[in-house]
């Protein structure tokens, strides 16, 4: 059995411990906000935080998260429903088109801004590798800058 925390709550999984965390979240814990896109860590739709760092859950065996703390898109807003500044920025800039990749984009951005609180466009180009098939990159870039402002203002 693998035990871990998801969005501050205890969780465990008793099946095949090589199962990717993605499918444990989606099929077993019914947290479907984390998306399946490629299964090989290329697209980032499955991005979650493991102990605060963005990871691609489709290539992370659940065995690797024993005792660790996972945050998914469902756990990003505060418990009173107040959105994370990155989510707020995404709404303000109206980023999503189909929206399928956006949970992963947001999770990647939260971690990215933790290490790059005031990123340049070049930093974004180097640090953001998630795919968006709709091509929302223009607005993602704007929203990352806006989220940096919102985060800076909150501090």
């Amino acid at each position: 059995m693998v035990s871990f925390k998801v969005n501050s709550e205890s969780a465990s999984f008793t099946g095949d411990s090589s199962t990717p965390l993605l499918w444990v979240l989606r099929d077993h814990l019914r947290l479907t906000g984390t998306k399946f896109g490629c299964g090989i860590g290329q697209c980032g739709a499955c991005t979650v935080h493991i102990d605060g760092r963005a990871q691609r859950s489709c290539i992370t065996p659940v065995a690797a998260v024993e005792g660790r703390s996972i945050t998914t898109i469902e756990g990003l807003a505060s418990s009173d429903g107040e959105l994370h500044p990155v989510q707020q920025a995404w709404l303000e800039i109206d980023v999503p088109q189909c929206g399928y990749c956006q949970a992963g984009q947001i999770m990647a951005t939260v971690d990215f801004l933790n290490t790059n609180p005031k990123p340049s466009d070049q930093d974004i180009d180097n640090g953001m590798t998630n795919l968006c098939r709709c091509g929302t990159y223009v607005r993602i870039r704007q929203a990352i800058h806006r989220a940096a402002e919102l985060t800076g203002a909150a501090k």
Partner: protein
Amino acid sequence: MSAVVNKSTSGSIDHSRRRFLIAGSSVAGGFVLGIPAFSLTGIADDSETERQIGFFVEITASGDVIIGTNQPEIGQGVRTALPMLVAEELDVEWSKVSVKPMPLGLVKTADGYTWKYGVQGVGGSTGLTGNWEYMRQVGATARRQLIRAAAQQWGVAEDSCYTRPGVVVCDSPSRQLAYGEVAEAAALLDMPEEAPPLKAISEYRIVGQRKNTIDARDIVTGKAKYGVDTQYPDMRYAVIARSPYLNGTVKSFDDTAARQVEGVLDVFKIEGPELGAPYIILAHGVAVVATSTWAAIKGREALQVEWNPGPNAKDNIDSFWQQNNDMLEGEGQVVVDDGEFTEAMSSAEKTITRRYKIPFVSHAPLEPQNCFAYVQQDRCHIVAPTQGPSGASRSAAAVTGIEREHIHVEVSRVGGGFGRRLTNDYVAEAAMISKQTGWPIKLQWTREDDIRNDFYRPAGLHEMQIGLDADNKPVAWTQRLASASKYYRRPNMPDENLWQPELYSDDFPRRIIDNFRLEYFHNTIGLPRGSWRAPAHTANAFVIQSFLDEIAHETGQDILQLQLDLLGGERELEYGNHGGPTFNPGRLAKLIKFVAERIDHKRERPKGRGVGLATHCTFGGYAAHAFEVTVSDSGELQIERIVAAIDCGLAVHPNAVEAQLQGGTVDGISTALGLEITVKDGQIQQSNFHDYPLMRIAGVPSLFESHILPYDDVPTGVGEMGIPSAAPALTNAIFAACGVRIRSLPIGNQLRDAMTA
């Protein structure tokens, strides 16, 4: 889905059900008459506080407005745009509006199936334009019912009442009722015979304003439900091992190891389509059903299948291109032949001839295909991410034998369409598996399944030729295309029509260059083909806009001036293809001039830096691009700046118009830079994003402008207009920067190879 009874029987139904039944019949009849779907009340829940006016509008006692959306949301913004039309005419505050997706509303009548909620399906950029009248009528009719109900309650004449947002008002005597107070009475009124007059566009205060995606909060919090997120009690999970060979079949399989995988419940063969027959599903294969997605995937990995490679086992992309090349040496099917083409071309002072190659590409929507299906004896429940819910019902009916009125289709939010989900092969597969097992099934495709099993954008080799007179004015024009038609394996499709989806006969420069000829050569290859965002426009815009740039260069003309001379002023030319009935080349002229001036195209750039222009009309909408790029001595390409502009007539939902222009441009660049599907020994060679590399954010320049140029009060679609002119603007800029002409897509390593040769 509730049943609907014919109007003639409704009078005999007991009172508690009567309103609904009348409603149903009114709607079925109403649509035929062009009157909005409108019922007295359409909900089984007889709650006193919430009343539904028509199928689309629900108003709560507190004045919240819930608007139904009948079209699949694939990212084009239709789930926000259509409610904007309803809310505008209904006269409510946008902040009070939320939306509710509607299932497929198919009604069986004596004359066949008809639509309960209007035609449902999105493709060809018609989601908005096809509902432009209808949704406004829905809103206007609901507003009129509210006014009537208030007037009756007050005992005043209807025409002494009017509305302010969310309120019915009467001035004499002065009084008012909030919509929430009068909605219940309004829902009980008879439906009007015809729709009331619509607002003047000058009075709009929602349509044309910047409104954010109405359900974006669900997306950014992970609550939005896509097909892939469907859950159902006792649901099982399925994957299919499909033939890796185009048109291959299952020779035999050994499921011993697969069945030993924990969670695997069943393994069985899936019959694919007959060779050459229309596709209901894409491939022969073996299904694995399990208690979880991962168990099904692991079970498939353990499965041993021996395949019959089938008749296409020798298909190779290189021989396909060679065949196209050879075909162009001969004579093809002349499908358009205006003026005195042969004479004009042969007597031209000068001719320029070029060939361009457009590859096969895959749709690769980020949500891999999936479908929930639950087939029970005489009914079936489908939840699918689809662009065509009616087609989903047809697909499920075809493989289950269940009548379509007993197939309930729910449309989830769709994780990207791009034309892939106009076909419902994955729905048919899921229904087959559920029928076979009796279980509720969620079929999941992996990315590899998706890249290798697609209705690919057709590939083709285009030969362009222009004849010029002594003043370099065009006297004759021809486009000769050897390609694999999209209409391959379509039902009842004669060979002589195969050219139609590949050469849009009325596209520019037809009717501008009088001596004009289109010639087609149909090549064969085993890949399934289908509609890929802006279908043949992506190919033809690239080819024509590249060729014009070459002509300008060859004849020493400024490309903008050449374009403006050809396009000319505003006038409506006949246009019989989708997006017609007319085409106004002056709208393109205005756009290309705008983007050219905006990027200052006349300014001399240093060596290694250049600007490219292109413009194209796609399904009735107009767009243009200007790109500025640098190419280093070693062939490294950098896009420095993009100016994109669209003329979509009235921009109903400007945020989405801009988003589609941005996204289409990115799609155009991404596809031109690196995307190609190839075949070797009858097998697709690409499998996932490592070898089908969609562009990442680093490919998009910081300097990216999108402009919406106003034109008139009639909206065009916007979902496909942003893509076609992007690639040629990029490659024209590359030529301006470094002198390398890209005539073969994708660009790939061509720049590096040319610059370092």
